């Protein structure tokens, strides 16, 4: 998978992320309810709310993650699909990450 490019406003974005104090691994009922409900509505096994830090992708809330990943809620930013969303600043629709995304997205952390 191609590593996502760094957005032009990266420093400001990271400063804002830091200020919002969200990169903290603790249960969050409000967000967890949303990810669980989205998984149900869209009939998907996994639903996540990701935050892209300098080096990592942190799943602030997640539903359906494998136990091992659920324990850390963190993957390297380089293998995160969400890094591409942050760079583009737009919604990205990937019908089948392993096929349609091809070289760009194959091998991303969501290949679970």
């Amino acid at each position, binding site marked *: 998978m191609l590593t996502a490019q760094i957005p032009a406003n990266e420093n400001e974005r990271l400063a804002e992320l830091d*200020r919002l104090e969200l990169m903290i691994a603790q249960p969050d009922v409000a967000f967890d309810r949303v990810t669980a409900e*989205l998984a149900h509505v*869209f*009939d998907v096994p996994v639903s996540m*709310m990701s935050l892209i830090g300098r080096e990592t992708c942190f799943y602030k809330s997640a539903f359906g993650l494998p136990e091992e990943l659920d324990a850390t809620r963190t993957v390297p930013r380089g293998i995160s699909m969400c890094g591409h969303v942050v760079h583009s600043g737009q*919604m990205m*629709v990937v019908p*089948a990450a*392993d096929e349609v995304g091809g070289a760009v997205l194959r091998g991303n952390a969501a290949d*679970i």
Partner: protein
Amino acid sequence: MDVKPRQITPREQGLLKMVADGLMSEVRLRESSRDVIHRTRIIEQDLAHARSVQRFLLPPAARSGPGFIVTHAYHPFDAIGGDFLDVFLRDDGSVVVLVADVSGHGASAALTSAMIKTVFLRAAASINGPAELLTAVNRELAPGAGDGRFATAVGIVMHADGTAQLAAAGHPPPILLRKGHQKPCSSPLTITPQLPLLIDDGSEYMSDLTLKMSPGERIIAYTDGAIEAINEEGKFLEISGLQEILCRRADSEPHPPERFVRDVVHDLRQYASRGLHDDLALVCLQHV
């Protein structure tokens, strides 16, 4: 691995966008809440400090000199209050007392009351009577008082022989509390109403009343928080109610002088079953 291909309709994309926007709103709301909590903590710490400063500015709980004992109680409605009281013992053996009530509550009223103290301390040593004190406070502070800000006040100068001079500026009348079983036990002192302080910096105040006190007699000066205490039925205590409390507590002596004002405030709080809703300052000036 989940390999089930999926299609997402524009409507579903819209739904996802709405959810994402909602999540961001939640994040922003949490940020605002944190900010408000943080600012509130700072304000509370500030107010706690201001409260300590204001208590520090109060005179000792009891002061005595040749021919008198002065005791007081001070209870702000908020963390800090706009009521003021102070006592100044002069070299000639007389004592000067000022009780004032700055309009409003909170920090701005408290700052005005602190300014009154600076003028009081400067003027009390040299004034000839309470009217001069009121005039001095008014002349110095009225020009800087904000729109609508005013203060009621009563000044008392008492000499070692029990002669007391009083002047008031729009303030509730002090109460004379007699000793022993004299009837009536207490009387409001009739003082001609004069304009409250801080309204007109050109006001000249008159000493309206001079009286000779007997040993054991007391003058009680207070702010309206005392007589506007409200009971369960919504009834104000009023001056007559305060007189009843004073007489009852005076009858139950002997007590140390500080105990008397504490007991009176206790009774005021009992009357105001839902709590006092104004600052309260009360001074007892006893001739001995």
